[in-house]
């Protein structure tokens, strides 16, 4: 078990290093930061002044090692546009992204597990097919469109929820629903197939033979086994959600890490982009690692692997 964790941890560190390098290189390839900082009405002289002032005239490898060295100890430098350190910016915005991610995941689990169970128990009936249709539609709907529909119905016509911004828990309801929809299809189908498989297995037949109640069979015996893949996928989905909430944060004007990343990409604010990519990657790596460990705990066969 320890060996497994150590190996996964080492892989995680390597992935993080690769992400760091890629984030640095890709941001440099995407444009000239000096022109971006100087703004659309700047003269060439302005641009040169900016280039010198921000040290952008140094060779690329010097800039890279300077950044990596500092990033290792948690110093991501200063944003070029916010008068603030990148670490501060991310720290301020991380709670919003995490709240959104957790709300989204909770909603997704609350909706998809019962739906999956229902579909499995009523396999091949109209209920099962409706659930399949629902998940397919859920997968196909673009999140910005769903966001807009929710805003119009719940915010504009019914006027029951705030449309954008943060401040109260109500602000997280609509974005949470939209985010949940990115995970609901996968989780529902996984629950369904897990339940179908479990319900057909020998131990369920045994449980039935013992004369256990139907509820006990479903929740105590079948669901426990069906839940193993769901738990680990949910951890990975949370990672996806944290990174994938950029569109949702932008549409709902939630000033989280994803929105910060989007804003910084648009402005070529490299230090922020690099740090956001790294932070999201580390979350993703951490959650994948957690999923691996959970799996190993739940399924002894994986521990030797």
């Amino acid at each position: 078990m320890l060996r497994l964790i150590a190996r996964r941890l080492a892989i995680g560190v390597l992935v993080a290093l690769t992400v760091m390098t890629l984030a640095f290189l890709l941001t440099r390839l995407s444009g000239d930061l000096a022109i971006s900082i100087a703004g659309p009405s700047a003269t060439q002289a302005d641009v040169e002044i900016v280039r010198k002032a921000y040290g952008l005239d140094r060779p690329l490898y010097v800039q890279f090692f300077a950044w990596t060295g500092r990033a290792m100890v948690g110093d991501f430098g200063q944003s070029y546009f916010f008068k603030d350190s990148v670490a501060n910016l991310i720290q301020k915005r991380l709670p919003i992204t995490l709240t959104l991610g957790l709300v989204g995941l909770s909603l997704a689990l609350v909706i998809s597990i019962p739906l999956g169970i229902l579909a499995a128990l009523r396999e091949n009936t109209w209920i099962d097919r409706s659930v399949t249709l629902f998940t397919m539609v859920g997968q196909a709907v673009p999140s910005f469109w769903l966001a807009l529909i929710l805003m119009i119905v719940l915010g504009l016509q019914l006027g029951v929820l705030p449309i954008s911004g943060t401040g109260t828990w109500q602000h997280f309801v609509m974005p949470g629903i939209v985010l949940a929809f990115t995970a609901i299809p996968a989780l529902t189908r996984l629950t369904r197939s897990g339940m179908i498989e479990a319900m057909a297995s020998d131990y369920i037949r045994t449980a039935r033979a013992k004369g256990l109640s139907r509820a006990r069979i479903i929740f105590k015996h079948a669901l426990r086994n069906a839940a193993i893949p769901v738990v680990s996928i949910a951890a990975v989905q949370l990672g996806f959600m944290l990174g994938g909430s950029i569109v949702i944060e932008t549409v709902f004007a939630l000033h989280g890490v994803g929105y910060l990343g989007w804003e910084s990409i648009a402005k070529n604010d490299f230090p922020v982009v690099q740090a956001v990519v790294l932070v999201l990657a580390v979350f993703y790596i951490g959650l994948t690692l957690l999923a691996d460990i959970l799996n190993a705990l739940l399924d002894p066969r994986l521990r030797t692997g």
Partner: protein
Amino acid sequence: MGMQNKLGAAILAAVVLGAGAMPATAQKSADTLRIVMRDALPNIDPFFNNLRTGVVMHHQGWDALVYRNPDTFKLEPLLATEWKFPDPTTIEFTLRPGVKFHDGSAFTADDVVYTINLVADPASRVSTPANYNWIDKAEKTGEMSVRVKLKRPNPAALEYFALVLPIYPKAYREKVGAEGYAKAPVGAGPYKITKVEPGVSIDFERFDDYWAGSPKGKPAIKKMSVRFVPDASTEMTELLAGRADWIWNMNPDQLEPVNRMPHLQAVRKESMRIGYLSLDAAGRTGADNPLTKQKVRQAIWHAIDRKAIADKLVTGGSRVPGAPCFPSQFGCDAEAATAYDYDPAKAKKLLAEAGYPDGFDVELASYVLPQWGSSVQNYLHAVGIRAKLNQLQTAALIQRAKAGELRAYLGSWGSYSINDVSAIMPNFFDGGADDYARDPDVQKSLLQGGSSINPEVRKEAYSSAIKKITEQAYWAPLHTYVTTYGHSKQLDFTPYPDELPRFYLAKWK
């Protein structure tokens, strides 16, 4: 996001038509004007952002030495009571006594000297150094008087002092530092800033100790909250739902639906921004390219129906500038310009005479609205110029343009709202990175116009530059821009042509 916003607009229009009355809940009762904008301001410190949003904010929270009357464009005293030009490179300001900053400290010559010397120094890393690079230094000549030395004469100097030079409180800014100042800024303007969340929101409150008699006046509305919402559809939904009282720069297509709402009003006003087509007459992209030939450039000017673009696409009172500048700017003499009417037949003839009877291929880069770019592309195609439209991000285009890589491109220029051609023509004709004409005669005329403070000398110099530029058809002004605003009907708001909303003049009806 383009598709997304288009879809959003369509859905919203449908909702507006179908939904009927929405609650009119402007915050009149709470006396708070709720403003929503898309362009988030990461740093509210007036000299450390290059955004229009930033200029808008500092005019509410800060005062400058000079005030430009938004109706007459006349320069009036603000923090300075008077000024003199003892010689073309010296300005002497007498300052207004009894003015207080929001922290209660008194305004003095020290504040002015501190601000001017800070922005004039390239080491300060201000975001728009070109706005201040003509200033040499400021010195205190008395408790309430300041002398500013210029590196070179700048006939539009007072316009810059009025529009882009708000005054810092020296003692406070030195105490809290640049970072502290960005989080809790203090100025001497009609509104004080009570809370800043960088890039998220800004709260204002009427400054009760604002000096009496200011042409800006004491604000009628007690509080303002500015919130940044990046998505246009979301912003529009906020307005429709009555959760925002004021938005701007909305898609012209949405004016009508907004106006149909009983609690809302949409207005528009022409701004000083000009859409233009830059042509590589100097051969920076290749010595013998077709655009180096005068007849080809004239053909292009004749080929584009600029009036149709202004009337049908930009709409709302957009005009075709006669000269390469905004009509109201000092020195923008359309009489001196050669006129080019829309005449595709003549364009074809000119192309044939220039040796291109079958036209030619050319890349047309653009960062303006895609539909505007494709209309120019279509007009060019119609006379045989096979333009390939290349839609780019603004920063990416500017980078290539400055490097001399763009044979033809579409862009826009707002002149920092400065009502003088020295804020536009030198940028495109002084031999710098944006100059695709490289005409020594034009450069000479502009230098003359920019270094004299005699209005007659200047007018003559600029007129001769305009004559040469239009004769040669170097750089084509296409249309003026029109700013759109949507706001609550309970709000009495006046838009001005300089793209500068003045909330301190707004009031509830």
